[in-house]
């Protein structure tokens, strides 16, 4: 922390929210969420290796309304980080920096994440199984 109270440059809150800021913030936020989710994946695999009783706890939690909510949220976070991550890789290659393109492909990340989430859960529903 600064030792003296110097004037600071204006930060995020002075800007009007735009889709570019939302995708940027969401990429980081979904990354943190997915890091926590990765611990749940590890826990589920350890339970699967431990035996049927431990696994029955996993399926009970995953099948509850709270578990399904977490799974649904995890799917969306993963879908967004995947699509927007692809966008970041394209930007690393130098593509898509013109403002109109940037706004358009930001929306593509947001819309694409919902489409992917719906696709995955649509397949799960059609196959007729919970976890």
């Amino acid at each position, binding site marked *: 922390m600064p030792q003296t109270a110097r004037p600071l440059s204006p930060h995020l809150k002075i800007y009007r929210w735009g889709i570019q800021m939302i995708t940027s913030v969401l990429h980081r936020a979904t*990354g943190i969420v997915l890091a926590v989710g990765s611990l749940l994946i590890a826990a589920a695999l350890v339970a699967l*290796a431990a035996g049927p009783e431990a696994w*029955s706890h996993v399926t009970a939690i995953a099948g509850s309304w709270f578990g399904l909510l977490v799974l649904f949220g995890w799917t969306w976070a993963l879908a967004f980080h995947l699509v927007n991550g692809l966008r970041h*890789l394209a930007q690393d290659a130098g593509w898509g920096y013109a403002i109109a393109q940037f706004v358009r492909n930001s929306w593509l990340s947001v819309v694409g994440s919902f489409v992917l989430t719906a696709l995955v859960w649509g397949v799960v529903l059609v196959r007729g199984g919970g976890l």
Partner: protein
Amino acid sequence: MSGFDRFRTPLKNARGLGAAKDGVHHFVVQRITAVALFFLVIYFVGFLVSLAGADYAAARAAVAHPCNAVLLIAFLIAMFWHAQLGLQVVIEDYVHTPGLAILSQLAVRFACVLAALASVLAVLRIALGA
């Protein structure tokens, strides 16, 4: 770009890899794991969806299949590696107290390595039928 050339001196070469001492290594590894995860995440979600409604024996048999076991282990390593690199940057950006920053970097690294080892061991135990 040529306008910037006059600011360039051989100093950057003499100093090697910059203040971080590892150049762009973090950036590069973050992207390599990202490209790997693009494919592995699609595989992993497909694997999970294919297991929807499966019982214990079916789930275990699916994980035990050599192709799945290899891809799952690749996914787990890439995921925890990528997570550590990402969380490292988040901590660098927002935690400014030196002691707390070091403690949280250590905690994230230890958690990612332990979770990676535990989950890879779990897949191996299932694949090897232990």
